[in-house]
């Protein structure tokens, strides 16, 4: 335990603070100190106590998130840069090794395999998920009795956590006792080994990922509900058929949502972990997803430096792919607020 925190705790104990509340005392004191620092910074900047300043109110309201972001996101990120330059097993002190972890990563065949598996998963699953979610949203947008029940049924699987999903599908795709092979056997087909077969494991995970398209479907549905009906009416009056309505109104109107789902889908796909973890990398590393390999190095092999280097490599890859997707798709995405290449001002002038 940190000596300062230990000292505050023993001080609280000597004050007779109930044992259950003792851990809270250092936290509250540190919080008060932190806000005092912020207040002093504000005072230093304004040369007076900023009582009626809206900007100060803004910073004070946003500060819980800001502090959380700095302490739990920026702090660990900065720390992991340093760790990635060391060799550290958590037991003995970290040893500075420069860029050795990065150069090892570039010559590690398992990094190549992990990248191949992860990118393959992203390249196949994201378009499939996007297309299926869009298709289902179109179906769920039809005004029929009981449609809300269908929407709920489609959305429900998204509420199941990753581990539970994987355990469920391990059963479904169990080669001996699973539902999938039982059904296939009934139509005279001998089912594959699914997760137990190196050539089937990744397709099985991709197939499994389609079970949870409900989350994206809800976003598409919200977008579909938002398309102005007068656009359809005007096009229909001009003689547009269903295909033209879809191609020239629905699709362009939903293009920002498709981009959003594709971007979040790519980021999520590149960070896939649970499936690889539960299947322990799959046969012949067929499910060696990058984040699972990173975890394996950090918490199975206790190579924190190498794992941190892998984390930064993944960060750069995700950043690059996101930037390429966002930039590359700009010609295909229609924004209502765009007017002849100029964005509509957010605040009306005058």
């Amino acid at each position, binding site marked *: *335990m*940190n*000596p*300062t*925190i*230990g000292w505050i*705790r*023993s001080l609280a104990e000597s004050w007779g603070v109930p044992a259950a509340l003792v851990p809270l005392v250092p936290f509250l004191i*540190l919080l008060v*100190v*932190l806000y005092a*620092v*912020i207040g002093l*910074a*504000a005072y*230093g*900047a*304004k040369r007076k106590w*900023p009582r009626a*300043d809206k*900007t*100060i109110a803004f*910073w004070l309201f946003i*500060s819980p998130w*800001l*502090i959380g972001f*700095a*302490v739990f996101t*920026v*702090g660990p990120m*900065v*720390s992991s840069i340093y760790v990635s330059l060391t060799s550290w*097993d*958590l*037991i*003995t002190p970290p040893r500075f090794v420069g860029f050795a972890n990065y150069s090892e990563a570039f010559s590690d065949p398992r990094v190549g395999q992990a990248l191949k598996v992860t990118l393959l998963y992203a390249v196949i699953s994201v378009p499939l998920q996007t297309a299926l979610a869009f298709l289902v949203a179109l179906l769920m947008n039809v005004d029929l009795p009981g449609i809300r029940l269908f929407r709920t049924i489609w959305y429900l699987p998204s509420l199941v956590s990753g581990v539970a999903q994987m355990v469920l599908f*391990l*059963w479904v795709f*169990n*080669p*001996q*006792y699973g539902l999938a092979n039982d059904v296939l056997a009934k139509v005279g087909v001998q089912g594959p*080994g699914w997760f*137990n*077969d*190196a050539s089937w494991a990744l397709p099985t995970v991709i197939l499994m990922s389609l079970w949870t398209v409900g989350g994206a479907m809800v976003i598409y549905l919200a977008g579909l509900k938002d398309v102005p009906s007068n656009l359809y009416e005007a096009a229909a009056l001009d003689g547009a058929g269903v295909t033209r309505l879809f191609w020239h109104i629905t699709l362009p109107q939903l293009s920002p949502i498709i981009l959003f789902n594709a971007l979040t889908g790519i980021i999520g796909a590149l960070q896939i972990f649970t499936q690889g973890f539960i299947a*322990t*990398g799959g*046969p*012949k*590393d067929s499910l060696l997803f990058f984040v699972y390999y990173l975890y394996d190095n950090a*918490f*199975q*092999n*206790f190579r924190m430096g190498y794992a941190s280097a892998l984390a930064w490599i993944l960060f750069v890859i995700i950043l690059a792919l996101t930037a390429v997707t966002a930039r590359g798709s700009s010609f295909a995405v229609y924004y209502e607020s765009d007017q002849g290449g100029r964005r509509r001002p957010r605040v009306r002038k005058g």
Partner: protein
Amino acid sequence: MKLFNRRLLPVGAGLAALLLAAGCATGDAQPAAGGNKESADISFSFWGTNSEAASLKAIAAAFEQANPGTKVTTNWIQADYEQKLQTSIAAHTQSTVMEISNTSLAGFAPSFAEQQVDPSKYVQPNISSALQYQGKYYAMPFAAKPKVMAINVDAFKAAGIPLPSKTTPMTLEEFRTVAAKLSHGDGKTRVFGSSNLWYRGWLTAAGGGYYNADATACTFGDATGVATAQYVVDLQKNRYAPSSVDIQGQDQAQWFAAGRLGTFSDFGPWTVADFVKISKPNWTLVPVPGKGFPMEVDGLAIAKSATGKQLETAKKFVEFASTQQVAQDKLIQGNTALGVPIIEASTATLEKVLPPDRNLAAFTTALKTGQVGVSVAKEAQISGDAEKGMTSYTPLGTGKDDVAKILPQLNDKCTRALKQ
């Protein structure tokens, strides 16, 4: 708005938060318990199931009772024990006393205090030597986990096979013959003569091992290793034992209870609780064939950073759990056991849990003959990679490649990793 333009405030807030985070993250190493070096209170981390945790909490309570004025705060880590232990060591928040197995000792030794262990206090010398690393003791033993084999007595009688000796193990060839005779039926109702065969266990039974005696080379790819792998593969291929795919998601103890297994070879002290419920088929315990499976020895380590009264209390606690009958008897809770007691006075405690015809005395026999492997610093990584290769590429798992080709390759890779 000037304040916003200066951008001093967010930078200041961010810096303050970072400094606070940095301040919280560093500091002098101290055991977590109490935070006060002059306090005699200690903390104790351990893993296990509900009943195993009950055993260890009972030992801690017995120690407090025997030593008035001392307090042992228990820290039951239910999952990912080694990961959490390692991260707590990195954060200097580790407990004063930590449970550790002989297989994991080497990796953690740098953060444990050296201990003085008297081998004569235990039923056999293997028990204390299991917790030595580079000639020094880094933990004091308190429980052993030898393996025995359950046999379906009804199935043996129905097949006209004489029951195996209760004290002398079968040879591997005798076991193969028995497994063949006990196997019958087809499809999902097939009865297997043996439960799934754990390669590392059968390798030890055959006289081999993963590493050589001084842990400088891997040996599972040698002639014994390949022959044992072929033995396992043959038993699976002939359907005398289920494969890893057959048992995926299945509980083999339930298979045994349903009469689908003639023998159940991976039977540890904690398995007793599952088998107590099985009255039909009739069953009893016999030694594992050959030289038996590797025996795990669990010990209690003291944090290297413990000092003053905490260190004194920790030493007393470890000695108490390891050598006092009142503590050793508490390894058995109801009809389950965390492990086999390691002092002579307590060995009979486990045997009395069930009637003599179940032969729990087989554990005592296994304890005295148990094979203890060497401790390797990067055990999880090295053996994990080797096992991953075996299960991926060979019929020991879901692969199809020849064990005679793959095992020597994996063995070479393993030896290289060992030398790094």
